[in-house]
């Protein structure tokens, strides 16, 4: 049993992820993007934040075709759990493992700050340690976090309980219905813009991310 934390050229949150899992006492390893297979016994894949391939063309568009992502797509199709944070979320929508797309923030700014979030659903392995409607305080830091999905897709998300987190208060990026994180129909793949690994210790200003990673990792 171990956690695979993917690393692309330009990823920059991978060591925060390893540190977070270390705090939780769970084993995790970096996996380079050129690898063709995930390590045996992987029980969770984490695609951390950053700027894979310099965000060239579109955020996540090129990382999606890397050798390791072909293994992750196979792993996800067999029901394996995948968590994508920020750039990881962008890679997951580009790869088709999650519906919708992430566009440039409505105000065109790179937004980096603590953000209040609302838990919309806990009927999934990702947020099972939280209460519905609970308010979380977790940092965001992105320029392309404006979640878009067409009307039909949005209906499906609602019907299947796939909207897991929304922004509270002023919407920081213009996303549809203030969506901050969604999962797939099977509730095995979760993508979110906020960074739970940056809200793990009182020193960082919040511990609200800890239950998300603990619920997944343990």
């Amino acid at each position, binding site marked *: 049993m171990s956690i695979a934390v993917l690393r692309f050229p330009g990823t920059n949150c991978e060591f925060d992820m390893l540190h977070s899992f270390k705090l939780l006492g769970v084993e995790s390893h970096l996996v380079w993007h050129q690898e063709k297979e995930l390590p045996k016994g992987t029980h969770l894949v984490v695609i951390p934040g950053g700027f894979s391939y310099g965000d060239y063309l579109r955020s996540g*568009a090129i990382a999606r075709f890397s050798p390791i992502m072909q293994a992750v797509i196979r792993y996800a199709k067999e029901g394996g759990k995948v968590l994508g944070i920020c750039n990881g979320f962008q890679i997951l929508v580009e790869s088709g493992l999650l519906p919708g*797309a992430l*566009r440039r923030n*409505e105000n065109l700014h790179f937004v980096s700050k603590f953000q209040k979030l609302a838990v919309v659903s806990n009927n999934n392995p990702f947020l099972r340690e939280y209460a519905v409607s609970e308010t979380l305080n977790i940092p965001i830091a992105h320029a392309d976090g404006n979640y878009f999905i067409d009307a039909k897709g949005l209906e499906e998300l609602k019907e299947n309980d796939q909207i897991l987190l929304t922004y509270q208060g002023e919407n920081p990026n*213009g996303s549809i219905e203030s969506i901050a994180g969604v999962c797939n129909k099977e509730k095995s793949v979760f993508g979110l813009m906020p960074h739970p690994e940056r809200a793990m210790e009182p020193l960082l200003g919040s511990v609200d991310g800890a239950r998300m990673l603990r619920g997944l990792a343990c």
Partner: protein
Amino acid sequence: MTAKITVSLKPGVLDPQAKAIGHALEVLGFEGIQETVVGKIITLKLAESDAAKAKESVTQMCETLLANTVIENYQIELLP
């Protein structure tokens, strides 16, 4: 043969960048702008000389990588 591919956001998908550019032009005193669309142009020099085959292969490139068809449209122009 050269393929010129223009990728832009689908109509109805709000483009904040285009809106900001249109607004900036207005502020500068340029009048009468009814719509601003921002896109990117990708130019490919191809070994293929058959236009139909080139179109088919470039279409596949657009669908696979060059455009995110959830939010973007693409136009292909083939030049000799």
